[in-house]
């Protein structure tokens, strides 16, 4: 992998739960996501896909191992600094889209921008409108998010993940809650963004068609990446 690495982790260990319910969720996971590439993490439920995404997205901290954005390690950063990194460098898309119900589609997209505070209000509005237009929701800017369909809400979530022009997009089963047509549309949208704008995308998915369309596929089982292969090639043990 010679391209620039946007996000990486090395030998990540993560335990979840307490005492008897303690589970070894991630066992020495290492991964590199390059700029302009789409990576899929696949595997059965409970194999550690989401745990890996949360750690890479700086939402959770590993019990051991190292996470780096580009080349900068983040283990030593404070909670506030991690929040700033999330705001600036990472865009999240969740399975259940997680929109703010009391806000319109446009306002939802503006929320990360408000936090970053880089643009004045008018420009934030314009950018949000542009992003929503890009996901085909240009005519629903002022609609409350709870009044949008599931597919539309997921597209708003995609637009919101791109609000601060992040280097990395992390998507936890972004199409898991959508029908086939909407799944394909959402994935295509993300794929285009990555390739056209030079982002890095890591998505956890159960959908084999989507996984096959990614540049890299990482298979996980019992907290380990057991195989990684690029599109169209055979599995190789990691």
């Amino acid at each position, binding site marked *: 992998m010679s391209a620039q690495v946007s996000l990486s982790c090395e030998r990540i260990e993560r335990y979840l739960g307490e005492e008897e319910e303690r589970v070894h969720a991630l066992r020495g996971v290492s991964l590199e996501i390059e700029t302009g590439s789409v990576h899929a993490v696949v595997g059965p439920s409970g194999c550690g896909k989401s745990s890996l995404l949360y750690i890479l997205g700086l939402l959770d901290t590993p019990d051991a191992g190292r996470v780096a954005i580009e080349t900068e390690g983040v283990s030593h950063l404070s909670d506030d600094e991690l929040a700033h990194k999330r705001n600036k460098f990472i865009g999240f898309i969740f399975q259940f889209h*997680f929109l703010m119900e009391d806000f319109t589609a446009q306002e939802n997209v503006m929320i990360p921008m408000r936090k970053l505070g880089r643009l004045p209000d008018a420009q934030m509005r314009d950018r949000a409108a542009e992003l929503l237009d890009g996901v085909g929701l240009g005519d629903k800017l002022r609609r409350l998010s709870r009044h949008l369909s599931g597919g539309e809400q997921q597209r708003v979530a995609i637009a919101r993940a791109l609000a601060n022009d992040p280097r990395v997009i992390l998507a936890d089963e972004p199409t898991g809650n959508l029908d086939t047509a909407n799944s394909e549309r959402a994935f295509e949208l993300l794929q285009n963004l990555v390739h056209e704008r030079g982002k890095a995308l890591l998505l956890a998915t159960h959908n084999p068609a989507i996984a096959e369309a990614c540049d890299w596929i990482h298979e996980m089982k019992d907290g380990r990446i057991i195989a990684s292969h690029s599109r169209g090639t055979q599995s190789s043990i990691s």
Partner: protein
Amino acid sequence: MTPPLYIALRFLTHRKRALLLSLSGVVFGVAIFICTQAQTQGFSRYFIESNIGSNGALVVRSRFRPRYEPLMVAAKNSKGSTGRRLYFEGITNPNEIMRVSRQFPDVISCSPVLRGNVSARAGFENATVELYGIDPALHAQTTDILRQFIDGNFDDFRNNTSAIIIGSRLAELLQTSVGDTVQLLAPNGEYWRFNVAAIARAGIGSIDSIRIYSHAKVAQALLQQPSGASMIIYKLRDRNRAPELASRFETLFQHSALSWQEREESTLQLFLTLRMSVAITVSLIILLAGFGIFNVLTMSVLAKIKEIAILRSMGYRRRDISAIFLWQGALIAAAGSMVGCLLGALMTWGVSHIPIHLRGLLYTNYFLVTWDWHHYAFATLLALLAVFIASYVPSRRAAELPPVVTIRGSR
């Protein structure tokens, strides 16, 4: 507008029922606090104004023999000073004391009074009265007597040495009016005849029911007093400085000096106790409003767990999340206090128009209220404090919520 304030506003306005519930608690708490304070202080202030207006802010009375305690050595096991002052009735040299007193910048004016108790008779009615022998011009400068007239006029009194001013309730008791004759019994058993020139209402029962004013020289002759004054009353620029000035006058003149605060201590304490009791009761209402807000915000945190996790995933810090809920509290407190102050003012105005027929300690036909910005400031401060405490715990709780747990739980 900061992002937490923007989000707080939206959270608030999209939960109208909860907002109304929280707001109404603060609004009514603040309004009731203001209104009750206005009433209790209204009666208290009226009493103070009327009392000072009739009896002065400071009174210099009997001369006392100076004691030289600093020069004495206390006996072993003695519990400090046990001796008492020896008082001599009356003012020894009123003109000199008044001349020196006027040098004090706090003193606006002072007036000598010769006071004595006599029997009064009018027609078939009798009463024991308190005779105040005054210098009309000085007394008019020092007290509010000119504003207390409900009948007659001051010139008729000033220009006629056999004229008197009579308290309104005493006039009712003796069934006299302006122009009637009242007889006062001198110590030698002789009745002196006086013409009622005016009727005055101080507004305090204990004054209006027993007091008669006459010219000082006439009172001195009637009471057969050697001294021209039994006390000097003072009008001060700042009545709150009366105790300090009283202490200085005692040292300087070797006469007992009494501030209005000391003179009316028991009545003032009664008013203060009443006011504090009401304030405590109403503060509890505001605290209850605080509990209401605590509940609403705690429920809001529970209802917004998902939103909190989203915000954290988008880079909002713990303190931003905390600020969102603190802002909600602050907005409720600010809006509630503002509306509460307006409602409080309206309620105070309404209460001041409620007719009552008080003829006891005080004379009034309507509820007495006082308009004091301190009530509004204190009520607002109390509301802000209660709401801050009420919103602090939920805000901390919201900030401490780990976003991953929520996101995992929503899968």
